[in-house]
């Protein structure tokens, strides 16, 4: 029986020019989104690789130089293009792309592509994810609004039930067809996007297995979204008397939950947990750096000095050895200040990212009203373009900053005794300063960090399905 119902529904969709028309438009938009996404991300990736190569060449060819002077010049950490940025660019354009790994200072990322981009309304931030989030619901609504209400209006619902079709089979058949068509569109979009990303993997250094898992995760969460949309559409179609009323109501729900609420939730979250402005952030950070620095004669300071020297020598110092060592004391002070300041910098940035998390949590709560919000979080997390991914990059860049500044300070400390700041590192020294080999977090991290969003979306899917079948048993009995 279900087979017959599925066949009938497919025929009706084929005959409905609007659904086919919209399907064509969605397909076109996905191709456009994919093409532009790939072009943008490939260009960005080329820029990143070129900039990394330039930066490396300039650093390695700086010749004989004072290592502290070189530590100020230092290196740049370029954020690699995320694994599935062509599918969902997420916040990539709205976060800095480059971090200057300078001595003394944990710099924020600079150069946001969004500042250079022409802007019209922010809705035009075009991507496959954007098309799927905004327009896929319309496709589902168009295919499904008349499913029950239309049959009831035409009197065919009575015929179907009269011919022995059980209400549950009837609903299931309609559900399978609508969700199936939408899922086919989704699967094609994810598969093509993932395949193209796989092809460009050789340069980016991401793992192919991780990328495939990310693609499957996206397929799963967008699939859940389709389940929600289809169930809600059929539910509304069951509950109202006329198909046109169902369409009107469903489009109203789309306007509120897909177009309006995601933005509203962001504005509310920003007002409840305001982001610190950069000037205040730096004022506070400078104050906490000052407060965190012990006097140079204090026990704490001397303990850090010992730790720094022991680490540089690779052995423990004897009790009175520190004062007698022939080392460059200026370089020791520089490295001690780096070690002490790390704690204050880490605390300041941790607080900043914790505030972002609070804002995200509030949006999560509001996603009880709109599954689109939870989907946005999941989509960016699995594409590797959310704030969590940026935080990981920022932490790794800071670790790299500590490593390279330490290498330069230690060279001056151990080899520049008696030369103060006149010591020059030999040209071959720069080869020994470690390169930034950034490994982005795997999809498992995205899974664990977005578990609550997944729970919310699962809840939405299950609740919508339960409501559809619960009411369906009665309302399809005519």
């Amino acid at each position: 029986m279900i087979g017959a119902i599925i066949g009938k529904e497919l025929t009706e969709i084929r005959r409905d020019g609007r659904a086919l028309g919209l399907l064509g438009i969605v397909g076109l938009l996905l191709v456009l989104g994919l093409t532009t996404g790939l072009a943008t991300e490939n260009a960005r990736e080329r820029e990143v690789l070129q900039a990394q190569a330039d930066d490396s060449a300039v650093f390695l060819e700086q010749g004989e130089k004072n290592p502290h002077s070189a530590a100020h010049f230092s290196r740049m950490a370029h954020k690699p293009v995320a694994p599935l940025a062509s599918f969902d660019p997420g916040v990539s354009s709205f976060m800095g792309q480059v971090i200057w790994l300078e001595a003394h200072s944990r710099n924020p990322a600079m150069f946001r592509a969004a500042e250079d981009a022409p802007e019209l309304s922010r809705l035009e931030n075009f991507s496959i994810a954007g098309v799927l989030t905004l327009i896929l619901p319309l496709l589902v609504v168009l295919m499904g609004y008349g499913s029950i209400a239309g049959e009831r209006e035409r009197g065919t619902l009575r015929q179907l039930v009269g011919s022995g079709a059980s209400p549950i089979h009837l609903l299931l058949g309609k559900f399978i067809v609508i969700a199936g068509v939408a899922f086919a569109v989704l699967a094609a979009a994810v598969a093509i996007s993932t395949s193209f990303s796989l092809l460009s993997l050789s340069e980016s250094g991401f793992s192919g297995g991780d990328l495939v898992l990310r693609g499957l995760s996206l397929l799963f969460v967008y699939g859940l979204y389709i389940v929600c949309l289809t169930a809600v559409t059929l539910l509304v179609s069951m509950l109202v008397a006329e198909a046109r009323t169902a369409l009107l109501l469903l489009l109203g729900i789309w306007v509120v939950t897909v177009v309006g609420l995601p933005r509203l939730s962001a504005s509310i979250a920003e007002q409840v947990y305001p982001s610190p402005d950069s000037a205040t952030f730096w004022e506070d950070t400078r104050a906490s750096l000052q407060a965190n620095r012990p006097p140079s004669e204090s026990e704490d300071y001397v303990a850090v000095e010992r730790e720094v020297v022991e680490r540089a020598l690779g052995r423990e110092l004897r009790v009175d050895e520190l004062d007698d060592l022939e080392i460059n004391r200026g370089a020791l002070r520089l490295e001690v200040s780096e070690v002490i300041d790390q704690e204050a910098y880490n605390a300041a940035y941790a607080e900043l990212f914790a505030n972002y998390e609070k804002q995200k949590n509030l949006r999560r709560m509001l996603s009880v009203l709109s599954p689109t919000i939870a989907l946005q979080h999941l989509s960016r997390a699995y594409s590797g373009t959310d704030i969590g991914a940026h935080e990981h990059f920022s932490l790794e860049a800071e670790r790299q900053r500590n490593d390279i500044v330490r290498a330069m300070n230690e060279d001056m400390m151990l080899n520049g005794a008696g030369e103060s700041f006149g010591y020059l590192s030999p040209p071959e020294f720069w080869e020994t300063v470690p390169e930034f080999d950034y490994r982005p977090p795997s999809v498992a991290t995205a899974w664990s960090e977005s578990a609550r969003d997944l729970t919310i979306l699962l809840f939405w899917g299950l609740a919508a399905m339960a409501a559809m079948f619960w009411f369906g048993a009665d309302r399809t009995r005519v």
Partner: protein
Amino acid sequence: MSGLIREIRFLASDRAALLWLGIALLVACVSVILGLREIAAQRAVLNDLIEIDYAEREVLDTLYQDWGDVAYYTFHLTWDSPSDFAFAALGQRDTSPWKHQIRALALEGQIYETDAENPDFALIGRFDFAFAANLLAPLLLILLLHDLRSAERTAGRYELLSATAASRGSPWFARAALRTGALALCLIGPLWAGGLPGGAGASTLILASLVVILHIAFWWSVCVLVDRYGWTSPVNLTALVGAWLALAVIVPAAIKISVEAAVPLPDGGEILLTQREAVNDAWDLPKAATMEPFIERHPEWADYTEVGQPFEWKWYYAFQQVGDQTVEPLSQAYHDGRIGRDRLVGSLAWLSPPALAERAMQALADTNVAATLAYEQRVRAFHKALREYYYPRLFRGEPVSTASLEQRPQFQGNES
């Protein structure tokens, strides 16, 4: 008059229409309240920062006896105050910085600093009045108008109603005009209610209202156009939502992609790398290699270029300036490219009425790209003034004095 009363009664009995109008009113109120709160928060932040800025400088002015130290350690807050109408269209204020702390060091390393706001929200955009009026309101109008005639046609009353009407088309026109007007009132009412007490000028509010009315009138005409085909309500609705998608999402996206391709910009990172390289190299180059290009720009200090010590502040600030000079062509190309992109977008925005209305609102609110670039120019001018203040003191080796510190340039905000 009786016709109008009849239509008002008819509207009052249409629960769906009341629902959409109620949503429009709610959306407009919420957007205005959120916008006003956001601007109030930005003003509060600025007031605090300006106070701290002055207080810190007062303390620092007592600490250092050398102009080099004074210039090195003294930060100067620069800012772009929101206009009184910025609450309605927050525009670029969440993607581009509206405050910077500037020192007399190389400017190019300071001016592109990223703010600490949540990038997620910048991506999504703010729920401001411009969003409500330009993107949500057309959808609500579509829901209000799509079935005025088609519903009557389906019910079989269309011919009768048309035949008995005083003039052909008048009941439909009056009905549509009433709904369109009601929607406009639902939007403009909260705008004025929030804008006037918030300090927005009546002329700005009138212009903004005109933008809203014209934009809504455009969508009314689209509804009329679609209705002419005599389709059923669902087909009308689908076609109109399709038109919204095309004009509000697809055309702007196409414009953005085309403009980015047509007007390339130098890579921002390249500016920073080049400037950083120039500044860093200066430490190891002969002093003359810095002073020569500096003197080309500042011949008035040609008699003071001798640098006898391994480190002298005047040489330090000279190579900071030379660092900026090195990237001038790149920086200028970046600036010109952004202007070029904005101009081209301005011309192409005529293809998308929602985008055009958004740009008009941002222009009224001084939150557009032009305002951002104007602020950047004010920062550059202030930084130039700072250098011109410090150079005579650094090059002539004058002692630090309170009287001299009082002459130091103060950043002038753009408070309305």
